Structures are given as structure tokens and as C-alpha cells.
């Protein structure tokens, strides 16, 4: 092991530095679990924790099952069959990811509530007075619906990429053995896609666990509610960090279970020629049914909320100041772009390190960075602020040398916000990069080295170009996530710094969802543009 390490000095050192920086703030949270229990903790445990945990478990398991059903079925249909609008649905089905769930929640409630378009139309046009209970979305099933509609693309994208790279022979041989399409799906496709299903679903689960906007608005009490209630309500941040730390513990537990389930199975292709599946042409009602299914999901997750937002934008146009919007767009794109770039670069370095060293620790350690994604952003924010203030105090002598008289320099700059994004979203980018590395295997690198080219030069000349797809998809995913991010941006931004998401949140939190439509639509527009560009680019790629 040590002899191996000696080979890869530069990479080891930089990967180690990156990982230490990623973990430091998380460690301050993890240590919170060992702080002594106080009376608030006891009270939470006695009265609410049990039911909160139950609600959370229902929420995450139902959302996971639904997102898997929708995401995987769509991925399978798209990779396997030819039907009308397939080419469009292929990329459009990712679009719901561009709508922040809390905006989705406000929008859907706006649609179905008493003054919403459904009830008013029925009331005014058809004179139907309805039982409002049938139109209530602000409950547990409603929240599951919201999370499912706006998060299923995680499962869809990851499984679709996986299935389209599957060697055709595997699925064809199942067909040859006389299995019908359904049995092929359940007996071959699901088992072989297990790893990618779990990968996508775990992103969904973590996103649900760390989200606060939807459940707060819907009045659903989850584990996250407990974290914030102890912090905001009881003013007891120690107990709330303790709760967050328990959440991390739970996530680690899940990760370990997943690891055990997955076992030692790992596939990698060293060959460039994975034969793609030939598409099966669907005809008649079957084709119609599949297209309708795709369009229905896309409408629920994208077109319907977008139509409502556009309607609201028209209603409120001119009533809110718009002159700063260009700045918000610029700010949003700037921080999301820089952070996503940094994350991808770091992920490339850490991924290469983990591949070079090959040890178990080197494989597992970067995986733990997902912890930053598992707990509510506001808690991460506190950890990051604490770390940066300590850093600033440490750097004071340096500041004085260059003539700066204030103590807080880094922590009032964008660097703090960007670092927080990196800590939080590293796992998303790393996932993508790591699967890219897995896919290309090590033969290309070895071939390059045997032609006399060193590790670092090989990285730039062979690895990076071959990882292009993974780099771009990782970048887009992180970019969109940061574009719609809320708690970190809100708490950690420097003075006079607004982004589209802070603006959207600001209106929404004042119960002015209509006024929030402009900023929300811009977020969606930029994300959608990124998705489209990404797909145009990928399609041009030779296989």
C-alpha cells in the first residue's frame, strides 16, 4: 500500500487536501452527536421525535418507490422502444429537475386551492361547489407527489445512461430465452440496474431529507422540522446539531447497507464497442399509450407548473421592480458556474487519486462526502460560518500585512458561499465523475503510460477527453442544483448579493407566490437551457 502511494505523490497530496477541506465542517457537526443531552433534547425525544421520524420514513420510502417506478420505467421505455416524440421526451423528461421543489409546492397549491384555477373554473363556469378536502395537497401524500414529480429525473437520468450503455446481448439473450418484455424488465433489467437505481434513489432520498421548504409550507412534521424547531423555536442550536448528527448517522447506516447489498459486484468496460440496443418500433395503441405516459409525467412535472408560473408572471408583471433582475441572473450563473467548475475539477482529482491508489479507504472516503448532502443546508451553513470565521481569525496577521484592517475577510466574501456549495454538492459531481472513471476502466490509462506518457499528462490527454460526457453531465447537475439552492445562499452570501433563488424565496416566504414567479421562471429557463445544450452536445458525440 505504502509503496503504491509513493508513485502518486502529487495526486495523493492534492486529493488529501481537498478531502480534508470537504470534511472539516462536517466533522464539527458529527462531533455534535457526543454533546451531552439537555432538557430540550429530552423534551423532543419524549413528545415529538417518534412521530417525526415515522413521518420522515414514510415520506422517503414512498418518494423513493415512486421515483424509482417512474424514473426506471421511463428510462426503460426510452432505451428500448421507438414511439412518437421519443427524441423529444428523451431529454425533456429531465426538465422537472429545473424547478425547485419548494416553488413546485407553492405552485401546485396555487393551482388546486380555493382560488386556484381548477376550483374557480369549476365554480364559476360549471357552478360546481366542491368538497375542499378533495383538493387538499398540503398533506403527506401531497408532499410525496411534489417530491416525486420534481425529483424523479435523478433516477431517470442515471438509470437511462446505465441502460443505454448496457451491452445489447444481455437483454437480447433474455428475449431469446423466451421472456416477454415484462418478464425481461422484472427479471433482467431491474436486477442489472440495481446499482444505478440505488444511486439515483439515494440522491432523491437525501434531497428529501435535507429539504425544508416543502414540508414547512405543507405543515408536515419531519425530522428536519425537529432540527429547526430546536434551533429556531427553542434557540438551542446544540440540540439541533445533535439531531443533524443523528441524521448523518442514519445516512451512513444506509450507505453501509447499500455497500453490503451491492457486494463486490462492479462492472467496467475497457472496450469502446458496447453495441447499443436496436430500438423496437411500437405501433398503434401501445405507441400511443407510451407517448401519453411520457407526456403526462412531463406535464405534471414541468408544463403544468410552468403554465401556472407564466400566468402569475403576467398577472404581476410591472408590480415588482425588475431593473435588478439582470444582476440576479448574472450572480446566479456566476456562483453556480464557478462552484460547479471547482467541484468537477476537485472530483476529477479525487477520482483519479482513488483510482490510482485502489485501496478500500481511497474508494470509500470520497463517498463519505455525500454526508454534506444529507443534512439541511442551514446546518451546513452554521458549520461553514464557524470554520470560516476561525480561518479569518487565523489569517489576521496576514491581512494586516497587506493593509486590511478588518478581521472578517473571507467570511464576508463570495469565497465562503462558494466553499459551502462545494462542500454540499461535491457528492453529486463526484458521483458522475466516479461512474465515468468506472466506465473507462484503467486500460486506457495503462496503455498511455506504457507509451511513455506520465500519469499527469495521461490525465489531461486521455482521461479528461474520455470523461467529457461525465464531466458535462456532472457539471450540469451541480449547476442546476446550485441555481435553485436556498438556505446556504440565503445565510452565507456577502452584503448586497442577491440571486434568482434568494429572490424567489423572498417573495414565496412572504406568501407572495405570484410575485415569485418571475425569478422562478428565470431559474427554470436557465436550467432548461443548460439541459438542452448538454443534450445537443451529447448527441453529437460519437459513440
Amino acid at each position, binding site marked *: 500500500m505504502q509503496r503504491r502511494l509513493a508513485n502518486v505523490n502529487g495526486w495523493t497530496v492534492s486529493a488529501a487536501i481537498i478531502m480534508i477541506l470537504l470534511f472539516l465542517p462536517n466533522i464539527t457537526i458529527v462531533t455534535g452527536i457526543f454533546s451531552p443531552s439537555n432538557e*430540550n433534547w429530552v*423534551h*423532543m425525544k419524549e*413528545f*415529538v421525535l417518534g412521530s417525526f421520524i415515522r413521518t420522515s420514513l414514510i415520506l422517503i420510502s414512498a418518494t423513493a418507490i415512486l421515483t424509482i417506478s417512474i424514473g426506471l420505467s421511463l428510462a426503460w421505455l426510452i432505451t428500448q422502444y421507438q414511439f412518437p416524440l421519443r427524441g423529444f421526451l428523451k431529454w425533456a423528461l429531465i426538465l422537472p429537475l429545473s424547478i425547485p421543489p419548494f416553488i413546485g409546492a407553492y405552485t401546485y*397549491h396555487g393551482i388546486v*386551492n*380555493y*382560488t*386556484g384555477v381548477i376550483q*374557480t373554473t369549476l365554480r364559476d363556469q360549471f357552478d360546481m361547489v366542491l368538497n*375542499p*378536502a378533495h383538493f*387538499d395537497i*398540503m*398533506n403527506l401524500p401531497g408532499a410525496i407527489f411534489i417530491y416525486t414529480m420534481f425529483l424523479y429525473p435523478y433516477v431517470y437520468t442515471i438509470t437511462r445512461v446505465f441502460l443505454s450503455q448496457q451491452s445489447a446481448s444481455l437483454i437480447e439473450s433474455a428475449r431469446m430465452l423466451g421472456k416477454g418484455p415484462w418478464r425481461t424488465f422484472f427479471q433482467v433489467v431491474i436486477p442489472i440496474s440495481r446499482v444505478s437505481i440505488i444511486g439515483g434513489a439515494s440522491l432523491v432520498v437525501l434531497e428529501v431529507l435535507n429539504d425544508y421548504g416543502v414540508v*414547512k*409550507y*405543507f*405543515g408536515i*412534521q419531519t425530522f428536519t*422540522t425537529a432540527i429547526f*424547531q430546536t*434551533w429556531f*423555536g*427553542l*434557540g438551542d*442550536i446544540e440540540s439541533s446539531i445533535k439531531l443533524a448528527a443523528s441524521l448523518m448517522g442514519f445516512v451512513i447506516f444506509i450507505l453501509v447497507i447499500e455497500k453490503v447489498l451491492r457486494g463486490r459486484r462492479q462492472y467496467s468496460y475497457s472496450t469502446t464497442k458496447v453495441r447499443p440496443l436496436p430500438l423496437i418500433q411500437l405501433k398503434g395503441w401501445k405507441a400511443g399509450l407510451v407517448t401519453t405516459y411520457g407526456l403526462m409525467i412531463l406535464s405534471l412535472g414541468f408544463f403544468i407548473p410552468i403554465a401556472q408560473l407564466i400566468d402569475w408572471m403576467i398577472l404581476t408583471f410591472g*408590480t415588482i*421592480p425588475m431593473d435588478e433582475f439582470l444582476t440576479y441572473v448574472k450572480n446566479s450563473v*456566476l456562483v453556480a458556474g*464557478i462552484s460547479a*467548475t*471547482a467541484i468537477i475539477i476537485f472530483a476529477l482529482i479525487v477520482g483519479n487519486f482513488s483510482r490510482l491508489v485502489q485501496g478500500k479507504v481511497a474508494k470509500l472516503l470520497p463517498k463519505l462526502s455525500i454526508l454534506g448532502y444529507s443534512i439541511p443546508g442551514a446546518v451546513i*451553513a*452554521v458549520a461553514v*460560518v464557524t470554520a470560516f*470565521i476561525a480561518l479569518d481569525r487565523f489569517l489576521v496577521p496576514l491581512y494586516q500585512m497587506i493593509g486590511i*484592517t*478588518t478581521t*472578517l*475577510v473571507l467570511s*464576508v*466574501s*463570495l*469565497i465562503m458561499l462558494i466553499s459551502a456549495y462545494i462542500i454540499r454538492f461535491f457528492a453529486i459531481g463526484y458521483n458522475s465523475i466516479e461512474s465515468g472513471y468506472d466506465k473507462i476502466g484503467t486500460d486506457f490509462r495503462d496503455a498511455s503510460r506504457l507509451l511513455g506518457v506520465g500519469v499527469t499528462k495521461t490525465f*489531461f*490527454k486521455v482521461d*479528461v477527453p474520455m470523461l467529457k460526457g461525465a464531466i458535462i453531465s456532472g457539471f450540469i447537475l451541480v449547476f442546476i442544483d446550485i441555481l435553485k439552492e436556498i438556505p446556504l445562499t*440565503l*445565510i452565507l*452570501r*456577502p*452584503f*448586497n448579493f442577491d440571486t434568482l433563488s434568494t429572490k424567489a424565496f*423572498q417573495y414565496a*416566504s*412572504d*406568501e407572495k407566490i*405570484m410575485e415569485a414567479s418571475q425569478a422562478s421562471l428565470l431559474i427554470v429557463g436557465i436550467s432548461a437551457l443548460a439541459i438542452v445544450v448538454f443534450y445537443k452536445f451529447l448527441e453529437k458525440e460519437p459513440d
Partner: protein
Amino acid sequence: MKKALFLVLAFALLVLSACGNDTTTNKTTSNKESKETKETTETNESKEVNLYTARHYDVDDELYAKFEEETGIKVNVIKGEADELLERIKREGDATEADLFLTADAGRLYRAKDDGLLQAVSSDKLDEQVPANFQDKDQMWYGLTKRARVIIYNKETVKPEELSTYEALTEDQWKGRVLIRGSENVYNQSLLASFIEINGEDKAKEWAAGLVSNFARDPEGGDRDQAKAIAAGVGDVAIMNTYYFGQMLNSEDPEEVKVAEGLGIFFPNQDTTGTHVNVSGAGVVKTSKNKDNAIKLLEFLSAPEAQGTFAEANYEYPVNESVEATELLKSWGEFKEQDISLSVLGDNNAKSILIFNEVGWK
């Protein structure tokens, strides 16, 4: 490819350092300026004031711009949620750049004070503009606008004569008819905190339990949603803040206006302890480096000229008694307010959360 990657990296670093320097160079130049001006006038400090605010209406920005126009003092703003901003100030400690902390709940102002984040400031102007009961007793914070938490009722099914007090809503005749949002909301926490002060902890708990048993449904949504639920026939009365009702009456959405017009507003406890009011207000941060500017901003925001816009834009009541409320607010009539020091809202906040949890108010 290698070049491209390095270029991106170099660009990122450049932008980062530029952004980082942005604020610092501002700081240093302003500090230099202040040194220079000190030599000449010795009164003027820097031309900035740094504001951490949990109030984020568009009109606020206009007022800050106007303030800069009048005084030449630039208002730097970080907008966020109250508790998170407080935590940030706390963590930044004596190095914090924050000068003024502004939030929309007296309980949070109390917490800031209790955590030792604020300092006492006094000025004749503030005393003149902000009535004593809307100031902190130690002058650590000053109220700027006020809102009442009132009963909204369905004009068709409820006669105003049937309504009297918050306490009366726990009676049997209201079973299955009362709407109110969840307990995680600070306005409910402050409401219960005021009852703890006025009626004692046991009575307050009794009230909360009684109200829960009269709920028309599990709490969900915001204040506006309670009003809509009345229109939808889920319940007949709702407890909500005055300004949300004002916003609905003036909504861009004609459907919301229609809903609001079918509702009446009732100020409870007029013959007893008074209607619950809360404020948005601000306090000067303990380690403020621009204390004078912060006080100037406070004075500006509570002055008659600003009070009009500041309160009006959000259908709130101005604290400055020389400023009249808007026509809409006047049409709701004068009312008697709870006679308590708003500081107690913060004092009792934690207690009210515990009560909410114990009585099962979601």
C-alpha cells in the same frame, strides 16, 4: 484540453479573488476615508451601514436607497431568515460587520438581546418617534411597524356578535370550525407567549389544547391559506395577521380579492386583555463599527416620511403615532392592544413551543 482546463481554473481564481477583494477594498478605502475625515471633522465615521435583515419587502430597498440619497450613507444588506442571521452574527462575534439587525418579530429581537448581540442606544428622535411600549425596556431595540393577530370570519356563517375573545374560540360552539397555521410559525409562538404572560402558563396550555380540539383540520399552509379555507367552507373562523388580509384585499388575483371580500375582520379581547400585536423592529449590534450610522438609519425608518411607505406597503400599522394608518387600516377601526412589554414574547417563546408539542398542535 489541458490549456482549457487551466484557463478555466485561472479564470475561477481570478473571479474569486476579485469578488473577495471587492468587499475588502471597499472596507479599506472607506476606512482610509474615515481616517482622513476624522482628522478634519472628527465626527464623521465611514459612509456605510451594514444591515442584517429578515424583512425583505421590495419597498425596503427603496427606503434604503432614499436614505443613502439623503445622508450619503450606503446601506449594505444581507437578507435572510431571522434565526439564521442571528446565528451568523453570534458566530462572527466581535468581528462581525453587522451594524443593525432588523426582523419581523419581537420574540427574535428579544433573543438577540438575550444572547448579548445588541447594545443600548438612545436618541431624542427615537424616543419621540417610537412609543415607549414599542421600545425595548433597555433601549436595545426599537419597533418600526406593528401588526395585529386577529380573527377573520365568514360573513355568511358567523355574526360578529358571536365573536368575543381568543379564549372563546375554545368553546364547544366552535368545534371543527377554527383554522390556524402550524405551530412552527413564529406568529403563533408569539401569540401563545403573550397568553403565558397574561394568563399564566397553565391557562395558556389549556387554551392551546382547547383550540386544537376545535381545529377544522390539521394546520397547513400560511396565513392566507387559512382565509381561503374559510371561503372553501373548511372552517368558519381563522386567526391571522392583519397584513395578510390587507394583501388579499389588494391582490393581483381577482379570485383572492373575491375571497377576502367575503370575510370579516374582528379584533378580539377588546373588553378584556386586548388584541395581540407584534412588531417588526431593529436593534444596533453590540460590536457595531458604524453605530452612529445605524442610529441614523433607525431614526430615518421611524420618521414620519418613511413610516408611511414602510408600513403602508405591507398593510401594517406605523409605530410612529404622528403618522396615520392607511384608509384600509383605518376602516377596520381603532382597537385596544395587549398591554404587555413585547420583550416577554421572546421570554416565553421556548415555553410556548414546548406547550405546542405537548398539546399536539402540529
